[in-house]
């Protein structure tokens, strides 16, 4: 199944729930609302055979746009056909349903996105910080993040 066919299938099954499709971009993607995502994820894995979640990138798109999660999916065979799914959420309600039961690797990726960007993944069994220390404050990859002056009494910003 080529990428075009996957997009067509997704369009047929989800119709209006897919808000945007760009096949001409450097990284072709489909966009959907957060509420559609669990259904779409299961559809992509089970019907389209995209069995590998290659990457989950959280992006802070800046004021007025919000946070974005980009899921790069791929079929793990010789064709290596894949597509990206983008989901945009506002800062004040940065919640995306978790897909750790669909692709198990999403577990750690979602923890990372929560840790660094503060996107909350609903339904995740253990959404705690993964890279930063447990008592770290703030989400470092947000554009408005200021690194702490002191951490546990140790001076941090020296330059």
């Amino acid at each position: 199944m080529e990428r075009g066919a996957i997009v067509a299938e997704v369009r047929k099954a989800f119709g209006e729930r897919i808000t945007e499709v760009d096949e001409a971009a450097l990284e072709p993607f489909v966009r959907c609302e957060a509420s559609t995502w669990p259904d779409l994820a299961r559809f992509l894995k089970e019907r389209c055979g995209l069995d590998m979640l290659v990457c989950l990138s959280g992006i802070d798109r800046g004021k007025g746009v919000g946070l974005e999660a980009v899921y790069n999916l791929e079929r793990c065979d010789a064709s290596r056909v894949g597509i990206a799914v983008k989901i945009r959420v506002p800062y004040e309600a940065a919640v995306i349903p978790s897909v750790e039961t669909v692709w198990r690797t999403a577990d750690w990726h979602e923890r990372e996105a929560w840790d660094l960007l503060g996107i909350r993944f609903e339904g995740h069994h253990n959404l705690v910080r993964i890279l930063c220390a447990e008592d770290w404050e703030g989400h470092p990859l947000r554009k408005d993040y200021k690194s702490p002056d002191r951490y546990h009494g140790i001076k941090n910003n020296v330059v």
Partner: protein
Amino acid sequence: MSSEATSTAALAPGGADLRTEEMLLNMGPQHPATHGVLRVMVRTDGEMVLDCEPHVGYLHRCFEKHCENVTTLQAVLYTDRLDYLTAMGNNWGFCMAVEKLYGPELVIPERAQYIRVICQELNRIASHLLAIGTYGMDVGAITPFLYCFREREKILTIFEHICGQRLNYNYIRPGGVAYDVDDAMLALIGDFCSYFLPKIDEYDDLLSGNDIFVKRTANVGVLSAKLAIDYGCTGPVLRGSGVPRDLRKDKPYGIYERFEFDVPVGSGEHGTVGDCFDRYMVRVREMRESTRIVRQALKSIPGGEIRSAKIKAKIRPPKGEAFTRIENSRGDLGFYVVSDGKEVLYRVKCRAPSFHNISVLPEISRGSMLADLIAIIGSLDIVLGEVDR
């Protein structure tokens, strides 16, 4: 989890009469076998591992934050320190993402392409040498480690001549490579290939053919292909499970389609497909394949430019988003790059293969012994710089 607990209880003679106590063992972040600063919380029943949970982040060096704050050219320096055993691959992966933003009109000069392949494959050998050496050490054989380092030093010397660094090269830059390689150096690389191939036999004698080593690794930490894909494992870990996925073959980047090489996969020679021995053996065989590629590249390397004229000293990648992956020595190394047309990239996300590979550890170590857990961690061959970024 509960099923595992009952199975260990069943192993104990006397069954229910024998009361055993679970012990919570904190392995790492400083432990000789965790390959850096991995911390694994292990719940054990005697020597039996009931469950384990890897804790990462002890080497979180804020790579992605740096990429948002320094120029694109400077960011290459930080990619070195991700998977510091295969810095060439990291450079290339990042540069490929940046180059993709420029679109198809950006053509990388032929000579640079060949140099990239040679450096990447040599670096793959160096990385696998360390993986094999430390793996031997994990199961108790110290001497192979020293032998591997002996060969590794030769590769590092070559790199030092090429780019002045032994570990973090900062050599492959967007649009080409930093410096040219002279013919004497290419001849030296050819000599190294001839020197190196018989040395692999030595490792085979010491480890691959060693009965104790085989007994320690075969049937240990069996990772099924389905589980590996579910966890996003790539590289030797996935190939050890019998899945012949290699980006150099599937989606040839650079000029890999011009070379002839095989993709070694695990076949369960001594046990089950996807056990520690298979993962180890894939690495040993990949070293031969890499040598093969280097030799082919040395034969046909052309002269000419090493940098594309299209990329100026001040790199301003065009607006856009790109996601590229290369086959690094630990698996698919991907970079998701978002540029808003400025000198500093808007966002860089690194898809680190080790991050996926280590996350599968609890699944494949349940019910094994403590010594097996060490063997399993070693066979996954993680680099914490990449896991934690």
